[in-house]
């Protein structure tokens, strides 16, 4: 093995009562691509933020190139040759590429000279690593893939020898991700060390040399990628044999509940995110939408639930048309029996500052059951909340507690209880188990299947392919705003992965 580029010894970090990193030991060899995998919240990003000086470890030692290093600010990290590409890009949107690259690394108090120097340096970097980008382009006018390239150039411009990438493919199209991996390969050839943080095992298997697994703030294992398997890594990540297959019988699909035809949705920038999509959901089936995040799933959910106006398209709910292009609001859809568990429960599905019982009526607050004239019927609301707490085993069982004080899994149960107990005809669910502990995942999955068995039409959108495969009776794959394929539950991961990567789509287009 080559010499270690980075050694982390006994790193601990707590945020209040939350122990994000516990006694972490890690060695990363120079000139390799080292993957760090783990579920959301396992502590990967915290660990790398410590390495980059964004946070201070409570205890432990960092060695860079064999020397003990004190990294108190990102400046220290940069001086030690560590660069980081954050999950959310750290770019100033209305600055040019050059301005972003020199920010904080200006060679001179006057911009003119700094920019001139950066321009020639950038030229060299572009040639060396094949990282072409127009230096005078304004960031917000660049596609996401190029913005990420600017982030990489920023790190290289600062002389990074060690490059940390935090979930770099989350926002990329498969083609962009492939390009990124090629760039990373090139960086490795040039002798740079790359640390890749991800929760996607496929990426780990594809490009890393070594992989470390984190779980609940601890480092559970490090493996040579060649000598491990996806199954082993998955088990290490979750901590017990994953039984993602939920017990369920055959679907008994009935009449069409929701028929979507030629739906097109644009985002706030005017970019088409959902492009002429059509599909049906029948009573008594779960339809899953698979896809890499950012391929239009969020916008599709928002449009169907009335939060975001669609540009065009016709939608039938229970055989009657519903105008999603501006006329229908979420309240009307709810009245017509469409319930929605949104992807972002912290800002959309819940008001964290509210008491639990107040959240258990959100969206149904004009239901006469909860009202006495213009007044809230407090007793009815609280009793109703208590019933749901009991039925969905929400803990702690206190309907007066502030919602922010519930765990992620219990918060999700609050939302699910609210939406399911309204007895809707159609239930649409975004990321049903994101940031939810393993115990609650099983509970949520069972509930969703129970809904199906009661004859409801259920639409599930998730970026977790395993979840889609285990829940769905039919799987639709979204890519670049379109549905590029439909498969049954028996479809293999590889088959779906190809669809998600847009491979068939591109072939068909040719």
């Amino acid at each position: 093995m080559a010499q270690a580029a980075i050694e982390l010894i006994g790193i601990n970090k707590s945020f209040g009562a939350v122990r994000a990193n516990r006694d972490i030991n890690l060695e990363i060899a120079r000139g390799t691509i080292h993957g760090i995998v783990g579920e959301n919240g396992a502590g990967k990003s915290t660990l790398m933020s410590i390495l980059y000086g964004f946070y201070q470890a409570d205890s432990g030692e960092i060695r860079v190139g064999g020397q003990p290093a004190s990294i108190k600010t990102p400046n220290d990290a940069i001086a030690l040759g560590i660069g980081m590409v954050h999950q959310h890009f750290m770019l100033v949107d209305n600055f040019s590429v050059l301005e972003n690259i020199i920010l904080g690394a200006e060679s001179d108090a006057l911009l003119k000279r700094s920019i001139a120097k950066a321009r020639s340096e950038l030229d060299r970097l572009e040639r060396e690593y094949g990282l072409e980008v127009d230096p005078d382009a304004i960031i917000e006018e660049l596609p996401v893939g190029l913005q990420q390239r600017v982030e990489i150039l920023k790190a290289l411009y600062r002389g990074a020898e060690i490059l940390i990438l935090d979930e770099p493919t989350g926002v990329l199209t498969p083609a962009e991700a492939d390009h990124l991996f090629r760039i990373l390969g090139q960086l490795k050839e040039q002798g740079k060390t790359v640390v890749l943080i991800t929760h996607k095992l496929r990426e780990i298997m594809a490009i890393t040399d070594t992989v470390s697994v984190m779980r609940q703030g601890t480092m559970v294992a490090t493996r040579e990628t060649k000598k491990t398997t996806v199954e082993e890594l998955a088990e290490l990540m979750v901590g017990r044999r994953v039984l993602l297959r939920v017990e369920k019988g055959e679907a008994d699909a009935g009449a069409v509940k929701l028929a979507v035809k030629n739906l097109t949705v644009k985002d706030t920038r005017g970019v088409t995110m959902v492009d002429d999509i059509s599909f049906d959901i029948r009573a008594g089936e779960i339809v899953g939408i698979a896809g890499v995040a950012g391929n239009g799933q969020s916008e599709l959910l928002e449009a169907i639930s009335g939060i975001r106006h669609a540009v065009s398209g016709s939608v039938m709910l229970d055989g009657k048309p519903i105008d999603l292009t501006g006329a229908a609001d979420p309240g009307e859809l709810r009245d017509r029996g469409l319930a929605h568990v949104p992807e972002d429960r912290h800002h959309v599905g819940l008001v964290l500052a509210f008491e639990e019982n107040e959240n258990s009526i959100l969206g149904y607050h004009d239901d006469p059951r909860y009202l006495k004239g213009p007044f809230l019927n407090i007793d009815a609301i609280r009793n109703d909340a208590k019933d749901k707490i009991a039925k969905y085993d929400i803990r702690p069982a206190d309907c007066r507690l502030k919602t922010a004080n519930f765990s992620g899994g219990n918060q999700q149960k609050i939302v699910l209880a609210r939406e399911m107990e309204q007895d809707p005809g159609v239930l649409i669910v975004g990321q049903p188990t994101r940031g939810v502990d393993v115990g609650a995942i099983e509970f949520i999955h069972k509930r969703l299947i129970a809904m199906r068995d009661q004859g409801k039409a259920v639409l599930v959108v998730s970026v977790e392919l395993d979840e889609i495969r285990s829940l769905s009776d039919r799987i639709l794959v979204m890519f670049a705003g379109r549905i590029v394929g439909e498969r049954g539950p028996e479809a293999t991961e590889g088959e779906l992965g190809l669809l998600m990567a847009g491979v068939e789509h591109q072939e068909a287009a040719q």
Partner: protein
Amino acid sequence: MDVFNAIVQTLDSTIRLSVPLLLACLAGLYSERAGIFDIGLEGKMLVGAFAGAAAASVFHSAFLGLGMAILISVAFAMVHGFASITHRGNQIVSGVAINFIAAGSTIILGQAWFQQGGRTPALQPGERFEAITWPGADAIHDVPIIGPIYAELLSGHSILVYLAFLMVPFTWWVLFRTRFGLRLRAVGENPAAVDTAGISVAWLRYRALICTGVLTGIAGAYLSMVQNGGFVKDMTAGKGYIALAALIFAKWKPVNAMFACLLFGFLDAAAIRLQGSPLPIIGKVPVQFMQALPYILTVILLAGFIGKAIPPRAGGVPYVKER
């Protein structure tokens, strides 16, 4: 010729009236471009005016007065920084607080120290900034057209007036041509980008607020040591808010700021000059309407009827590291 003279005189008072607006507006530009809303411009100007006149009168030096105006105004800016940067408090609330503390303390201290009903003693020659006469101004004063323009419009202002207008290209140069300016604009748009680039967000924002304090200090000194021969209570009379309006009107750009302040200064000058005398075509315009016009124009601008004013993106939001 009468009309011409009237125009020159109105423009001359436009310049005089727009100077405090311009200084305060540029002051606000530094802080808002760095992502700190500042509705405390009014209060900082007021303490600057008081400290300047008080120190000038006690130490018999205009420049010591100016220095003290800047010092105290910067100190108030630092309170704003302490609340809104260090403690991530609500920037608007903090600004409101500063305006009150300034309004109350200038009167209380002024009365306690000088016993003239909240005024400072009238400034003597040497304690205030005198007008500077440009070479040859007297000689060509009687030359038609050029004479009055040179002698009255350009010449004959105090050094602070010229300083205020020089601050416009200087501020532009600082913001768009220096490292400090690049970082300052960046922190107002995306502080996380600045933080991860290894620059201290807090220190950068504090420095921006120091610039704000310096400029509001000069603005205050202008009010009490140039425009007026001493401090009078509440002498800012809403100029800090007009400057804020001008800043929005200028879409946070230095050169635009100058034109916005000149426009608002002109409205003020015209209101004083007309004093109810009728205008051709329009007829009689109430003084109050002219005084309200800057605010009305700003509301119309904010409503998006004359272009869109897009503030710095991180404005008003305290920076908290994500985790």
